[in-house]
């Protein structure tokens, strides 16, 4: 009985009083969250519906099967070019991302270099894409004489993809139990075998969803490609000195062009972009679920 008394005297009632105000604050916080969420959903859905509606109502088969110059013809050169550029970007960014993530997670560096690598990737994430494009133009297009090209565009995209990839791959590697890594070393595996037999096979699902995310982000980029990939009314004829078409350019240029058909091409390109980006993000979430 004494325990009950002292329990009541020791502030139990005060806690109940506070609970009332806490509940009100809780409801206000939840309410505000729902309002903000609602605003975001409305904006997103409006954009989505508007773009899908505009694109779907003007799309023709001819647009999808012929190349064009953003005012006449179709967008096939832009569709092909977008995936060529993204593929090239992935080619340049994936190997260093995997190596960088392995370096950061293996814990054998003295910490300073790992920290520098992480800081470097964080800074890269925040560099505006137009600045990356400007840099690519000066260094790749002009100094290294690559011209507007797949290689220059791919490198410019890879600079933007690398930090996302590296961070997601690092997280996938960190999800592998540390004991398994130690076990592999204790069984006489060297670094290369630990990477190829433990890290890569076990992190492949996480890595794949990271790749899809980076690809979807890269597919929607414009600024750095304007300066590095240029544009091409047809298909790129080589890796260097041949501009490349891409969908975001059609959106940007088609809207500025004073003909109705060019606006239609812009709508269709925007629809294709939003569908592929949404599809890729959904696929990456699906593959990475539970990871």
């Amino acid at each position: 009985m004494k325990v009950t008394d002292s329990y009541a005297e020791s502030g139990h009632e005060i806690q109940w009083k506070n609970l009332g105000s806490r509940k009100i604050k809780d409801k206000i916080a939840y309410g505000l969250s729902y309002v903000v969420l609602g605003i975001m959903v409305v904006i997103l859905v409006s954009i989505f519906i508007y773009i899908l509606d505009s694109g779907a109502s003007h799309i023709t088969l001819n647009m999808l099967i012929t190349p064009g110059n953003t005012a006449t013809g179709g967008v096939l050169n832009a569709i092909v070019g977008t995936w060529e550029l993204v593929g090239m970007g992935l080619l340049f960014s994936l190997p260093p991302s995997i190596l960088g993530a392995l370096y950061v997670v293996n814990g054998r560096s003295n910490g300073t270099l790992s920290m520098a690598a992480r800081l470097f990737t964080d800074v890269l994430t925040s560099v505006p894409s137009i600045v990356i494009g400007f840099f690519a133009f000066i260094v790749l297009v002009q100094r290294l004489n690559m011209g507007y090209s797949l290689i220059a565009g791919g490198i410019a995209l890879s600079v933007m993809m690398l930090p996302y990839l590296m961070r997601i791959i690092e997280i996938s590697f960190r999800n592998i139990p540390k004991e398994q890594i130690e076990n592999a070393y204790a069984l006489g595996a060297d670094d290369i075998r630990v990477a190829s037999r433990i890290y890569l096979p076990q992190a492949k699902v996480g890595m794949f969803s990271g790749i899809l995310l980076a690809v979807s982000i890269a597919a929607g980029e414009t600024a750095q490609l304007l300066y590095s990939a240029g544009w091409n009314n047809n298909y790129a004829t080589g890796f260097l000195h041949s501009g490349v078409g891409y969908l975001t350019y059609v959106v940007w240029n088609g809207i500025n062009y004073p003909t109705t058909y060019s606006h239609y091409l812009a709508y269709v390109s925007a629809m294709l972009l939003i569908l592929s980006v949404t599809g890729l993000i959904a696929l990456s979430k699906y593959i990475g679920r539970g990871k």
Partner: protein
Amino acid sequence: MEEKGKVEKIIEIEGLKIETKKKVILDGVDLNIFRNSVNTIVGPSGSGKSTLLRSLNRLLDMEPSMDVSGDVLFEKRNIRDYDPVELRREIGLVFQKPNPFPMSIYDNVAFGLRIQGKKLKKEEMDKLVNRALEDADLYEELKGNLKQMGTSLSGGQQQRLCIARALVLRPKVLMFDEPTSALDPIAKGKIVDLIRALKQKFTVILVTHDMSLTRKVSDYTNLIYEGKFVAKGTGTEFFESEIEEVKDFLSEAD
């Protein structure tokens, strides 16, 4: 308490000091490990037992924060003169928590052979895997199911699978880091029997603070306390010791 003189030493630890910038973990310890015996290192948590094990197969090389000095001789040769990969094949380690790789039982056991890069014929590989499973007392239970995932086994079986995985390389020394702490009493009993059997073929180093396990299997028992060995002796000598730290540790552990 003198160590037995007649038995051959396989590992000689001389003045081994392991420290970080903040803390001395092992303070210049000496220890001999005897061939075909169970050499047990006991001590409270945080006394440096596991760090000592990791230094013997140079797993500590991967932790730059650890500063290691002193000598460890494995078969009269300093472990620094070995290639770490070669050394780890000679001195196997079984960890506290059973941790099979997410692959089949067969692939788990064959892992150590495959990473050596040698091309073994299937029959040869099968023979080595089966022998390791037999040595780990697992073959009879699992034969015919070797394609099953290693992670689907019970905790005790997983731990014996990890032992088989280490044994397939035929190491000269097999180190156990608290091998029974994550197991139920029945699974623990099997590991006890297994450790007793293994010493016929291998040298065993056992790190534990489980004194009942130590009583059952240990030939040489060494008490480590705050980074120093405070008592060393054969199984019976150790438990009858009058050294204060031993009496304290035994009373607390029991």
